[in-house]
């Protein structure tokens, strides 16, 4: 396939034994990294080396390795998911780096995402925000109305889909100087706001989800837009504007 080279790199990786321990950056040299490897395959190689040397491998979250589960959360050279745009860490390839590079790898940093170990953080706050209202209250019965009973304008359906592609990775929070979760919350609020099925519970949804986000310790939104730039799925700031409109309308009518 493409020209495959081997490069030698230096890694500075955040190591932290557990939630209470104090962490620090450790330095590792890694030779012979194929430029066709993904970033996580490079991390596998590092771990293999650490295991063979009798050390302890770096703990990190990952699963799908194709940019859709939202597990992999590495802060690489000061950017969530590293240098490439519209990319998750697992989709980043080593051809983005050069022989001799030093690469910094850290976990997401936010009060609401405490570190569990090394690069692994606790993102359960995101689940609790969804539990506060990220659903339509419909039971499974087998006699719901026919799926084509309510036509939905294509533009709205497409916009709802775009908002719904959020993978819950938390890069938006990691990128934000206030550690705000606005883009994440707005993506869900928007998806339902754009669909007829979401209307009935729209007001409670936005109020409850925003309240929960505050309770979890995520900061306020100051419209800097860093989240949009770092979001691997290109969730747009328009969603935050839509959420703010929904929020205002809901607050006024309550």
């Amino acid at each position, binding site marked *: 396939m*493409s020209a495959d080279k081997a490069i030698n790199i230096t890694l500075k990786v955040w190591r932290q034994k557990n939630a209470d321990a104090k962490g620090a950056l450790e330095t590792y040299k890694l030779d012979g990294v194929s430029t066709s490897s993904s970033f996580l395959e490079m991390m596998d190689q590092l771990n293999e080396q650490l295991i063979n040397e009798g*050390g302890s491998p770096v703990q990190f979250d990952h*699963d799908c390795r194709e940019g859709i*589960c939202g597990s992999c959360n590495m802060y690489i050279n000061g950017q969530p998911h590293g240098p490439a745009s519209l990319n998750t860490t697992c989709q980043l390839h080593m051809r983005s780096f050069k022989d001799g590079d030093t690469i910094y790898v850290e976990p997401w940093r936010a009060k609401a995402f405490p570190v569990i170990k090394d690069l692994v953080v606790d993102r359960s706050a995101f689940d609790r925000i*969804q539990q506060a209202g990220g659903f*339509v209250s419909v039971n499974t019965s087998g006699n719901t109305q026919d*799926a084509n009973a309510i036509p939905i*304008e294509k533009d709205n*359906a*497409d916009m709802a889909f775009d908002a719904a592609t959020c993978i819950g990775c938390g890069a938006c929070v990691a990128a934000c100087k206030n550690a705000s979760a606005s883009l994440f919350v707005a993506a869900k609020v928007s998806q339902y706001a754009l669909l007829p099925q979401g209307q009935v519970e729209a007001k409670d949804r936005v109020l409850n989800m925003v309240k929960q986000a505050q309770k979890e310790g995520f900061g306020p939104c100051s419209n800097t837009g860093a989240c949009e730039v770092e979001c691997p799925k290109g969730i747009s700031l328009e969603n935050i504007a839509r959420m703010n409109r929904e929020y205002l309308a809901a607050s006024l009518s309550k």
Partner: protein
Amino acid sequence: MSLDSKIPEGPIADKWTNHKNNIRLVNPANKRNIDVIVVGTGLAGGSASATLAELGYNVKAFCYQDSPRRAHSIAAQGGINAAKNYQGDGDSTYRLFYDTVKGGDYRSREANVYRLAEVSANIIDQCVAQGVPFARDYGGLLDNRSFGGVLVSRTFYAKGQTGQQLLLGAYSAMNRQIAKGKIQMYNRHEMLDVVIVDGKARGIIARNLVTGEIERHSAHAVVLASGGYGNVFFLSTNAMGSNVTAAWKAHKKGAYFANPCFTQIHPTCVPVHGAQQSKLTLMSESLRNDGRIWVPKKKEDAEAVRKGTLKPTDIKEEDRDYYLERRYPSFGNLVPRDVASRAAKERCDAGYGVVDNDTKEGVFLDFASAITRYGKEEANVKGVENPTDAQIKEMGKKVIANKYGNLFDMYKNITAEDPYETPMRIYPAVHYTMGGIWVDYNLMTTVPGLYATGEANFSDHGANRLGASALMQGLADGYFVLPYTIGDYLADDIRTGPIPTDSKAFDEAEKKVKDEINSFLNIKGSKSVDYFHKKLGQIMWNKVGMSRNEQGLKEAIKEIAELRDQFYKDVRVPGSGDEMNAELEKAGRVADFLELGELFARDALEREESCGGHFREEYQTEEGEALRRDDEFTYVAAWEYTGNPSEAILHKEELNYENIELKTRSYK
């Protein structure tokens, strides 16, 4: 024990309705006193958890990821089938049933498949009501596309992220019940054993993956929705954590394991790049709607392409072999997966592969003619007169980008080649497992009170699954089948009361789990878990992969047993058991794969025929097509564990075809 599939009496179209009318129900007040454990929160487990909680049961759900939203189902790309007949192209419940049985090469159970087809339409209604944003046309109605092995358009989709949208729908339904306290969610927990009390499944032992604590959880019934075991091959399109552990531990406790050798090798995946490769990436089957598959006609061209001295786009039309269109004129590029995969292997084995890796394996998937065709259509629609070739290409590319943009981006990202300009290079990869835990019509395993749903069971796809039918099955099981059939069993438990966890059965199960963990940690050998996993993968791929023969299978069985011995002598698992420890998690999973692999090869050896994804070289027609042997092998092979995979006992469930005539599959 003889196998009773519990298929209800009566004509096929009435079986499910009659059955639902006749099974026992649990009244709502009593459901509050009944606990159900669901292991896995992908489409199958997520939908089951939400529905059981809505019905009133207390649900405890488990997943190994940090959130149910990250289950492997999230990665499904192409779509979900349903017999809605919105396109008016002649689709019906019967046709979906027929296509699925035929696609599965006549090795699935008619009654189950019919029920699946029957409830398929409800799934789409339910998902739309939840706010799942399926693709729509300009009239605002739901859009459809076609998948392999069928002649109608019945696949619903959300761009290339259908699994994501469906899973987030099930996740939202779960969240509603978690907020109500009806589901207790245990994230970052791995089930390591089933607990059987007085012959019934009454709980599980799970490891808290953050603290390492070994926990006891009890319930009146246990549902396994833990996904497929494709990772026994090390390289597959499955998520890194996908495993057989939950299913295998259940097998060791008495659940029969059915048709382990029925594995789907998906024809269109990005080829292997090198030794560091950790997983393979699928390029959705939907691409075969528009992509044409070919290799060069001349070996010297193939070699020049591999060396990089000849560009594929410079190979003349007459020097290309569109081998699927040549061999299967009526289905062409849309033949089922097993057929397409074997045809690719056949060309590469003959020396026409186009990828420069160790095995020279790869074929082209080309969009050039689709780009031109769509470009011309667009020019007509937009009224562009005498468009230039460049204009046509530009417009055509836009149409393609709209349909498959995210897949093209993904491909470019991995390979650094631009599929709008040069054909994709693809090769088959392990993708899905049709085999799994044996279940009866009620989705109950051979252990009373233990159920299996989704990819974890063996039920509906026979020897080959059609595209877009796994999502359908997972949601059918979880939303519409299990929540009702389980009531029939639980009706006996309304007065049982909570199941205590201080019994002997729990003590023993917990001790076994702890001992196993300690044994991994104490080996302190010289090789990593991945070393063994990769070795196992090589044996599986080379000898139990796309084509199999007696000698290779016998060798594989021996080699896997040897590798297993070596694993227990020489694996190195760093760290301890009472902390987060990914290597320890992997060790447990690989240990189970090392046992499953052997049973898998035995099953393949025992099945002396070719059917669906199982191809035995000894059994093929003169044209190289799969040769089924219906007289002897029209059965489900259900294996009983007796202490060692090599001593497993084979039980046969005969398959009776009353509504569909057994025929040789033909896609010519």
